[in-house]
């Protein structure tokens, strides 16, 4: 336990891109433990809109056949870190849809470790980052498949959009597989808004700001698709995107 309490350094992979000075102010980070009992379904939406430094660490246990749907919209903190550990038993299902919308000198990060401990569990992570100014957005996502966890179905989709040349996106989807007969897909892309698409929208009368906002809204939509409070999350994100463009 004492090891956990020591402030991490750059050498610690999970904190490689963190703002360590800001982290020091909120260290140690309490573990928030969530247990989803066998066969039950739970969902949680986190809207991280407070200023200053915020760090959270969720530890989620999904028992056999349990379902957990986690959505994260992070845009407020100067330093905002959300770490999620999820452990899946047989047939459990974990969804994470997250959007990080940063500007100025914000440092936003999502660090996940999803472990498929038993057969036939599925996990799906969709991470979208929109970064303006000198903002940094990081996603470090490890999916571990334990020995014997056959029939695992896991997917990570990670995309970042940079609105300025000075913004930074770090993305590291990682797989650690000790079982056969598993399906683990991951994809990762960092890009800029399509100039041709923007001109097309503007030629129809949209202001450049509105054209960008519309394209960014489309870009992050998948992160909240299917959420119980999808409309609320979309509306909050849209308002924030209006400030970024």
């Amino acid at each position: 336990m004492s090891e956990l309490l020591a402030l991490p350094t750059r050498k610690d992979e999970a904190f490689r891109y963190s703002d360590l000075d800001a982290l020091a102010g909120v260290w140690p980070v309490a573990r928030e433990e969530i247990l989803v009992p066998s066969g039950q379904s739970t969902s949680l939406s986190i809207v991280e809109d407070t200023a200053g430094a915020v760090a959270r660490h969720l530890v989620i246990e999904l028992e056999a056949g349990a379902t957990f749907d986690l959505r994260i919209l992070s845009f407020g903190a100067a330093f905002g870190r959300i770490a999620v550990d999820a452990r899946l038993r047989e047939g459990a299902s974990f969804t994470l849809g997250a959007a990080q919308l940063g500007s100025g000198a914000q440092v936003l990060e999502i660090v996940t470790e999803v472990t498929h401990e038993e057969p036939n569990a599925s996990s799906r992570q969709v991470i979208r980052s929109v970064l303006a100014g000198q903002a940094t957005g990081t996603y470090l996502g490890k999916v571990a498949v334990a020995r014997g966890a056959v029939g695992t179905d896991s997917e990570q989709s990670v995309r970042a959009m940079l609105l300025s040349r000075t913004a930074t996106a770090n993305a590291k989807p990682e797989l650690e597989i000790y079982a056969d007969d598993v399906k683990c897909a991951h994809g990762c892309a960092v890009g800029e808004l399509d100039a041709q698409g923007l001109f097309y929208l503007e030629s129809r009368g949209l202001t450049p700001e509105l054209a960008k906002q519309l394209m960014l809204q489309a870009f992050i939509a998948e992160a909240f698709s299917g959420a119980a409070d999808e409309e609320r999350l979309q509306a909050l994100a849209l308002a924030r995107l209006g400030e970024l463009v």
Partner: protein
Amino acid sequence: MLQINNLFATVADKPILKGLSLSINAGEIHAIMGPNGAGKSTLAYTLGGRPGYEVTGGSVTLAGQDLLALAPHERAAAGLFLGFQYPVEIPGVSFVQFLREAANSQRKVRGEEPLSGGEFLKLAREKAALLRMDMDMLKRPVNVGFSGGEKKRAEMVQMGILDPSFAVLDETDSGLDIDALRIVGEGINAIMRKPDKAVLLITHYQRLLDYVKPDFVHVLAGGRIVKSGGPELALQLEEEGYEAVAA
């Protein structure tokens, strides 16, 4: 309505338009024809204000307003519509949302009340029917998964909804089969053949002009208009080729 006077434009520092002049009055339909590389699409994009198309000389006015001083969205609000040769696919944004935002953005600039959701859908349904397009297609993401012909019909639906005073249609006939060509041609007539509107059709072929009868036909070659005439000029071009006619 549209006055182009001695227009010079470059793309990536390469001169493309070299002293192009053209005058189009309200109520007229003009066709510009010309060989590949003559500057036809450059003219369309320059009028639309696409980034990268730099005007190095001359002037363009639309209804007396200096078009070149306006940003692309302001040109749209001033009454310009640009029909794209290659309409752009925009995943995740539905036609309905995009077009309602577009129509209301233009109305705002003109100091008009925004259309309500109901009013907009009624208008969209009417224009989609005009182009024989299923309304369900407009609920899909912009141009995604559309065939070449569907994209062009969708362009015309957009034109119908946005109701411009002047339209530049860049090879709207390319990628159309014979039935679609007729539908698009009739759509252009229904939307734009009016005393207070005008159209500039950019095309390679005579066939669209069978449906949309131009009042004037111009030949664009080497970045300028080298010959102008009536509809018979298009027929002559079709028969004899650009080289013989424009020489």
